[in-house]
């Protein structure tokens, strides 16, 4: 029995070091997170104040929402590079609907969600039906959207009173309800975006971990052919994953639009990389070694807390990207370098 279970030809694992290693892989990132919080809290007591924690949550909420979406595509063995530009396009779409078409809140939101679903479906169809590799397909739609969103306004940001390409002036404005999505605080403390993030984190965790559809998605990511031969409709699941990703990105775009209050063409530039980083850092949380929603949320929080703490301690803003990069590389080392190799 023992010779079979530990057959080295299959696992390639050396056991004595493996225990320590397994411990490091499983808890390394969490230990790091706790140590970091303890350090910042002792250096800056204000770090742990409710006000500051809310600021951190708010700063990561949109990135985390996008990251949760991209996690779903990672689970099926794909990747969605278009999320940043979907969010930016959703922001422009919401602004355009309200400012140019003078539409209402629900119409703006519906337009964004429809956009996200549509882009997700296009991505999915490109990948599943035309067999374009996922990175390339979503890179293509990313470029396409980045360009398309500029066309209706001839490349300018959208704000009340702007002149349109046809010479008229846009008279509409952001509705109060829409702006409230970005500004209202529940119990005067918690912003809506944080609540949306938490709700999505819970929902996607439950979906991926506990439902049978999530289970099949993991199976597809691990061995698509085996999933197919077990009777799973791999194509539909993949398209669904990209649609979930698109919707999450558009929700992120809506919240971003509500926060900025104008259709700013340059918003959302850093969303893609931050979200992808959060999802990849999530691989290392609890040594999951695979995409998972809780890990993604913790990954986003990790980056947010780190940047916030360093800012409080007067680290210059231009170091932020380097820090994010370092965290990502470290997390990837935990996940891939230390974990037991599968052959």
């Amino acid at each position, binding site marked *: 029995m023992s010779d079979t279970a530990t057959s*080295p030809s299959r696992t390639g694992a050396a056991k004595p070091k493996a225990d320590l290693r397994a411990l490091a892989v499983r808890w390394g990132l969490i230990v790091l997170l706790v140590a970091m919080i303890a350090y910042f809290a002792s250096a800056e007591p204000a770090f742990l104040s409710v006000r500051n924690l809310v600021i951190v949550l708010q700063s990561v909420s949109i990135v985390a929402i996008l990251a949760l979406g991209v996690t779903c595509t990672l689970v099926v063995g794909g990747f969605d590079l278009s999320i940043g530009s979907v969010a930016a396009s959703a922001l422009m779409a919401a602004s355009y609907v309200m400012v140019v078409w003078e539409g209402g809140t629900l119409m703006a939101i519906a337009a964004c969600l429809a956009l996200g679903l549509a882009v997700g479906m296009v991505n999915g169809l490109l990948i599943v039906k035309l067999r374009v590799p996922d990175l390339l397909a979503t890179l293509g739609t990313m470029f396409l959207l980045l360009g398309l969103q500029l066309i209706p306004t001839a490349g300018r940001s959208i704000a009340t009173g702007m002149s349109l390409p046809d010479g008229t002036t846009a008279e509409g404005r952001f509705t109060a309800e829409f702006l409230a999505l970005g500004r209202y605080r529940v119990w005067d403390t918690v912003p809506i975006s944080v609540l949306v993030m938490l709700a999505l984190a819970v929902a996607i965790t439950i979906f991926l971990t506990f439902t*049978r559809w999530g289970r099949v998605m993991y199976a597809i990511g691990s061995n698509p052919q085996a*999933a197919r031969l077990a009777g799973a409709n791999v194509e539909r699941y993949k398209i669904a994953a990209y649609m979930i990703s698109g919707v999450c990105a558009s929700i992120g775009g809506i919240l971003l639009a509500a926060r900025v209050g104008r259709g700013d063409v340059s918003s959302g530039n850093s969303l893609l990389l931050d979200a992808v980083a959060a999802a990849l850092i999530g691989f290392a949380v609890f040594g999951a070694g695979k995409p998972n929603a809780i890990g993604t949320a913790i990954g986003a929080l990790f980056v947010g807390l780190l940047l916030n703490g360093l800012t409080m301690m007067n680290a210059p803003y231009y170091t932020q990207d380097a820090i994010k990069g370092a965290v990502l590389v470290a997390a990837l080392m935990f996940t891939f370098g230390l974990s037991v190799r599968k052959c």
Partner: protein
Amino acid sequence: MSLELKAITKRFGPSEVLRGIDLALVPGSVTAFMGANGAGKSTLVRIIAGVHTATAGSMRLDGRTFAPTSPSDALRAGVVVVHQIINENVVLTMDVLENLMIDRLCAGGAPFFRRAAHRDAAQAMLDRIGLDVSLTAELGDLPPADRQMVAIARALAHDPKLLILDEPTSALSDTEAERLFTVIEGLRDQGVPILYISHRMGDIRRLADRIVTLRDGRITGDFVVPLDYDAAVRAMLGMALDDAAHARVPAGDPVLRIEGLPVLRGTAPLNLTLHEGEVTAIVGLVGAGKTELAETLYGQRRATGGRLTLDGAPYAPVHPSDAVGRGVFMAAEDRSGGSIVPDFDLSRNVTLPFLGAFSGLGLVRRGRERARAAEAIEGLGIVAQGPDDPIAALSGGNQQKVVLARWLTAPCRLLMLDEPFQGVDIAARRDIGHALRATAGGRATLILCADLDEALEVADRIIVLSHGAVVGEHSIGDLSRAAIVQQMSSAA
């Protein structure tokens, strides 16, 4: 040339996989190396090939100390290994010439790769084993048998001082295997010691002049001519396998009717009826159309004509999910590529197709799922700690049992198993055969295999397929092996 192993021990953590192996491989001999899955064969091979280092013990090659630190180190010393998993031996996206020349490319030389300069050498490598494929054919487009032969051609080009073949015939047809055997015999006559790992008694009978058996990390038997095969099997398993003979079960109602189905492009239409309670084995060489037939029945390829009827109703699956929905299940030939989900544990691999039955409101009930897996472990004798074992920790035979357990989870009309005994040790094969026969009532069972012995072990009825057509049908009670073999190799 000779290789001598002295007291080789290998430990992985607390478990001792090899417990002191003493073995000498001498020129001019083909040594068959037998052992159940998990006995330590692969570990020993990997130590000789420089993949692993022994915990203790020493090796001498031609009398000189041999302690390879890497596979390329071992290769330089003349130790050539053809690994069991074909796709690890070849690069699927490169063509035949590039695959044959890959070692030379890696070894250095001119910065520009000129195909013309290598064509003759590559062709010579193919000619040596009598393989007739185009040098410009991409490996991924070749059938597994040809890929394996390309890998072997490449290995032989190293002028091995010691050749190790790990299950080289598992993807080969009998003709191809025979070609390989001829090449192996040629090398043996040139004085190259050969270590031949196989589960196939046919290969061993044909080729070996010595059998070494490994069991639980120890050498338990070393047999020389005249070889006592039964004793070797006993030494390998620590028990004698009882005779597998079983009585034919009378066939029940028809389950699946195949009428006028062209299995391969341009072959005669096939007619076949599968009955409830009956285990039908389709035997045939590689390329006979067995896998194509199974894929058509499972909705992986469209039928180009003919008619399928399942339980009296038309049956035209266009996707495996259609087949599963109608109670037609299949375990694919390629276990690791087509059945096993490597990231899942044992229990999740068992329940994958039937998650609906294990969930309420979409949420998977882990308890029910683990109970089913525990039941499967018990019922099929799966060697594992429990339902939560990572699937990758199981040996090939046990993984195959998990696959079988998967398809025995839900009520089934037709169960198809494509090469269910590939890479499965004899004891596990026996367990799987018993389980198949014990559960065969209430469904039709179809086994596809190239090995006649395997078919005889489980089937009530043997169908011989050649070029997509049925060329023979035999009932288990009265059949002549000679006739079947003759039909299998008949060129239609």
